[in-house]
């Protein structure tokens, strides 16, 4: 078979270039937008994804990690009684006010109190053992590299949290918070910094590691039912992370914004692509008409146009992928939060190909002008 669509695309590449660029940039925009939004909002769940706990236990109905309320510390006993549970530790969350050494005014911070032992679950993926060991020192805190300017401190400086003097003993990376600043301390320091009398030293969460993480769903369901220890609920890490991210996305309206912007990008891309394809078809309309005169059906000619649209989409996406990888690497190196997963990437690819297909369908209409009788005038 003579590959008319591909050969024309290669030979007249200049004619098709705008369409290829339109599909490519539309794909790239969708992808980067998704990566950026996922990146920004996944920091809402950094406490969960940066830790190796399989189960999270917190106040019933908690919609995001940052919105926890204290629970009864005795729940820990209930967890330990379950044979599937290998390890349990408390996690403290304290909303606090920060005053830096230099004059940066007040700053809202999230103080997170973690078990500083080397095998501790909290932030096991984000804090290297040497760094977490430094937290054992009383009133020691770690701040994120991305926040040091905002807090007006550097390692070794002292600052004041909720009226109590603390010392910055290290800088973490990848612990940027959403809507605030993360400050990591030991469990003891966190309890000291918590000046809310209703908290009574109770933990905000209990996190647990299971002997078999694959059983997380079943164990969570089993532990959830017990009402004997006051109000608490159990979620798998995956569920709670997802819930936290979704809460922020929907709460801020960012989710709707993403969909809206994706729609605009799709529309603009489709208009440019279809116009370019239409022009390409119009440029060869006499040749198409001749083929039709020779008996090649209009249906077959439409396939040629659709095939062209497919190749335009495929080439555009290839370019978008290469450029996208470069940009994501660059963003990562600059601490810009970007996250991509396979379902979202596939969705972006599908959107770009749908854009090409829609444009191809629109461009088919130009074939109506390929009337062979018009060649006889």
């Amino acid at each position, binding site marked *: 078979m003579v590959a008319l669509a591909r050969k024309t695309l290669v030979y007249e590449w200049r004619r098709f270039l705008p369409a290829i660029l339109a599909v490519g940039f539309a794909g790239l925009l969708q992808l980067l937008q998704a990566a950026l939004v996922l990146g920004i909002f996944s920091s809402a769940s950094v406490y969960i994804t940066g830790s190796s706990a399989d189960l999270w236990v917190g106040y019933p109905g908690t919609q995001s990690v940052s919105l926890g309320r204290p629970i009864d510390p005795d729940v820990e006993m209930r967890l330990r009684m379950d044979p599937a549970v290998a390890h349990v530790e408390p996690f403290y969350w304290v909303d606090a006010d920060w005053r830096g050494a230099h004059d940066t005014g007040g700053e809202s911070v999230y103080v997170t109190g973690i078990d500083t032992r080397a095998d501790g679950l909290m932030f096991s993926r984000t804090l290297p053992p040497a760094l977490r060991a430094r937290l054992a020192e009383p009133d020691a805190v770690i701040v994120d590299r991305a926040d040091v300017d905002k807090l007006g401190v550097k390692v070794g400086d002292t600052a004041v949290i909720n009226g109590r003097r603390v010392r910055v003993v290290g800088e973490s990376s990848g612990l940027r918070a959403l809507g605030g600043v993360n400050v990591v301390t030991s469990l003891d320091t966190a309890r000291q910094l918590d000046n809310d009398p209703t908290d009574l030293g109770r933990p905000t969460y209990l996190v647990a590691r299971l002997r078999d993480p694959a059983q997380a769903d079943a164990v969570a369901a089993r532990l959830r039912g017990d009402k004997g220890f006051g109000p608490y609920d159990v979620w798998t890490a995956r569920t709670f992370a997802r819930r936290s991210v979704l809460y922020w996305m929907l709460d801020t309206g960012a989710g709707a914004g993403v969909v809206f912007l994706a729609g605009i990008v799709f529309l603009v891309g489709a208009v440019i692509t279809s116009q370019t394809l239409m022009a390409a078809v119009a440029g060869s309309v006499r040749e198409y008409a001749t083929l039709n*005169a*020779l008996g090649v059906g209009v249906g077959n000619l439409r396939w040629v146009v659709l095939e062209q649209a497919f190749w335009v989409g495929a080439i555009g996406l290839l370019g978008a992928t290469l450029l996208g990888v470069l940009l994501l690497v660059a963003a990562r190196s600059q601490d810009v939060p970007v996250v991509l997963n396979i379902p979202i990437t596939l969705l972006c690819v599908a959107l770009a190909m749908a854009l090409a297909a829609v444009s191809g369908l629109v461009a088919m209409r130009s074939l109506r002008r390929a009337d062979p009788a018009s060649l006889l005038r």
Partner: protein
Amino acid sequence: MSRPAPVTASRPSGHALRAEGIAKAFVSGKVRTQVLDDLSLTIDAGELTLISGPSGCGKSTLLAILSGLQKVDAGRVIALGSELGELDSRALERFRLLHTGFVFQGFNLFPALSGLEQVELPLHYLGLSGRQARERAAQSLDEVGMTPRMHLRPSELSGGEKQRVAIARALAKRPELLFADEPTSALDAANGQTIIDILHRIARTHGTTVLCVSHDPRLIRHADRVLSMEDGRILSDQRPAPPAATPEGTAP
């Protein structure tokens, strides 16, 4: 230049095309122009028939109607025993695919394809395998003397060469009917002569019914039959004496 054996051993007798009382008008706004009015004619099989006349006389419209590219307002057209008016657009496409070839004034070649690919392309839609299509395309290009240049794209060919590729494209389908619309008017004398010779030879060797519309006087000597048209009617129907130089020399 090798020549394949004719598809029909003896030239078929009888009518390849018949038009009975056909009429066609075009409406543009409030102006209605009657292009053809109660026109009847028959075209004999295996002949090169030339329709000539001044521009606007309706000869191109007649060609479009006889070839099934346009519908008539009244009357009927019978081509190879089928009444074209009774076929829907799909069936007409099928009819054209199996039985007709076209050569246009503009060569209408795809810029991206080589001569061989231009000729091959329609053959795939006939259901030929890749190898068969390539062989047949090469054969057709050989017949019009384009073998040495069949791998070149249109931009590398002269006007005459492009028209020879276009003729090969029409010929490769082995049509019973070949329609040509002003095939020489975009060409110089020498190239025009080559095209005329090729069309004439196709009628002779393949028994193809060639219907050619042209106001090119050079064509008249080569035609088996010349119909002169004016104002939508046929004024004269002549059979000029065959030129002595006809290759096969078997004029009727």
